[in-house]
């Protein structure tokens, strides 16, 4: 018995190719077709936005090349995708390399964002559907359970997913370092640039219930209001000229208006912090030119981070994640060697048993 993985990922194929060969997650038809592929004993299809892979257990090692080609043809024919150079996008791993590859995928070492947690859930979902389609036998069952174990080991023994690596998640984590519970906090948005909307999406995930939007006119906040309505979030419009009357109510201020002068000045914030009895205020200024006076960071209980600070943290965390990924690679290699050795021993045992019979 051997294992083979045939597929393509964000590293080998552009989205325009990947989208043409992706499989629907709930459709069992490709599994039925996969079972008909010559040489395939058991199979699992993993189709995400970054990769399309078929992992198969093969009975005869001698037919490995032929079966890998048959799987590749299956991918192409199933979608009726006639790309002459498809093989240049596909990779094929077999034996120990296939084991290592699958373990790396489950442990999120082969992901676009190394260490992101979603991939493990996607592999588990693919495993569940394969079970439902009855294309999973004892070999792949054992194999994927080991892959889940390896992914868990990587999560617990390294800090690969500990630090946030996007501006949105860094902002949310900074908020959580200041405030206990975000859901009841008041967030003021001054302007609504593209990056601000990304941060807002992250904040909405923390179940924040009320946003205040400061702008020159109420009409310009219509789009954001519409967007918030989907999440049943309360939105209050704040005219820019009345900002001084509202600032003391805000726990978080996110500025992205790109106004040529400071909208939030030191004087305004000094008044606001006194009015709210020194309760902390977290300010994020991602506008260029800056809209919040950088001097306010020196006021007690006010914390100001600008776009460079956030990106600096992201950069540092990425570096840290790369170091952790190296540790994770060692774990994956060690586990792949162990699993392959066991698989090898079992193959000899099975051959000896069938010869005796």
């Amino acid at each position, binding site marked *: 018995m051997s294992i083979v993985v045939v597929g393509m990922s964000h590293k080998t194929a552009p989205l325009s190719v990947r989208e043409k060969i992706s499989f629907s997650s709930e459709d069992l038809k490709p599994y039925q077709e996969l079972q008909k592929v010559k040489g395939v004993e058991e199979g699992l299809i993993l189709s995400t936005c970054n990769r399309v892979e078929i992992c198969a257990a093969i009975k005869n090692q001698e037919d490995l090349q032929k079966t890998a080609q048959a799987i590749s043809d299956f991918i192409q024919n199933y979608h009726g995708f006639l790309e002459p150079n498809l093989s240049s996008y596909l990779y094929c791993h077999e034996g120990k390399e296939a084991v290592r590859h699958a373990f790396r995928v489950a442990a999120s070492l082969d992901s676009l964002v190394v260490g992101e947690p979603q991939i493990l859930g996607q592999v588990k979902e693919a495993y569940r559907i394969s079970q439902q389609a009855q294309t999973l036998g004892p070999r792949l069952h054992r194999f994927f359970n080991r892959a889940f174990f390896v992914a868990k080991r990587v999560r617990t023994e390294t*800090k690969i997913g*500990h*630090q*946030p690596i996007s501006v949105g998640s*860094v902002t949310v*984590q*900074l908020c*959580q*370092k*200041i*405030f*206990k519970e975000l859901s009841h906090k008041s967030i003021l948005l001054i302007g609504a640039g593209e990056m601000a909307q990304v941060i807002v999406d992250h904040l909405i995930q923390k179940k924040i219930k009320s946003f205040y939007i400061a702008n020159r006119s109420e009409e310009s906040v219509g789009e954001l209001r519409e967007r918030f309505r989907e999440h049943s979030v309360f939105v209050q419009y704040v005219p820019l000229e009345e900002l001084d009357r509202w600032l003391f109510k805000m726990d978080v201020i996110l500025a992205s208006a790109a106004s040529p002068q400071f909208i939030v000045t030191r004087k305004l914030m000094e008044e606001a912090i*006194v009015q*709210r*009895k*020194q*309760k*902390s205020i977290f300010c994020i200024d991602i506008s260029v030119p800056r809209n919040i006076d950088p001097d306010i*960071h020196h006021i*007690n*209980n006010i*914390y100001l*981070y600008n776009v460079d*600070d956030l990106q*600096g*943290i992201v950069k*540092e*965390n990425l570096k840290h994640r790369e170091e952790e990924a190296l540790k994770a690679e060692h774990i994956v290699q060690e586990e792949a060697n162990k699993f392959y050795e066991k698989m090898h021993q079992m193959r000899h045992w099975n051959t000896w048993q069938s010869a005796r019979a």
Partner: protein
Amino acid sequence: MSSFLSWHIGFSLFSEIQLALALVLGILYWIQEKRLKEKTVFVRESWFPSLETLDKVQYRLLVIGFISLTLGIGMVILESSLKPKQGWMFLGWAVYGVILYLRRLTGFRGRRVLWYSLIGFALVILASLHGMGMGRGL
């Protein structure tokens, strides 16, 4: 030992524990605040709770410690056995009283609370050490 004195020792000990814990939380708050101000909060991972949590728990401990300290002093007054060591205790009590008063009035918190707590705690401990010394006949 009279029952008032036993109660005094009990309340004083309890308040010292609460105030010591409040001091520890004050130190954690100061470290976390410093890391946020210096923008090094992600450099080393920490298990620190949020500033808000540290502040709320510290405030509760200060209130419980202050009430307990007041009761401890009250027991001494009831026994009418005021000694020099109670002078330190009164001063410590007054410092904690100022912290709580300013907290209600202006939202006094963070680093400044830590410095005031340090002074208050030092005075309370000094009073206890003085009392222990007198107990041994020093």
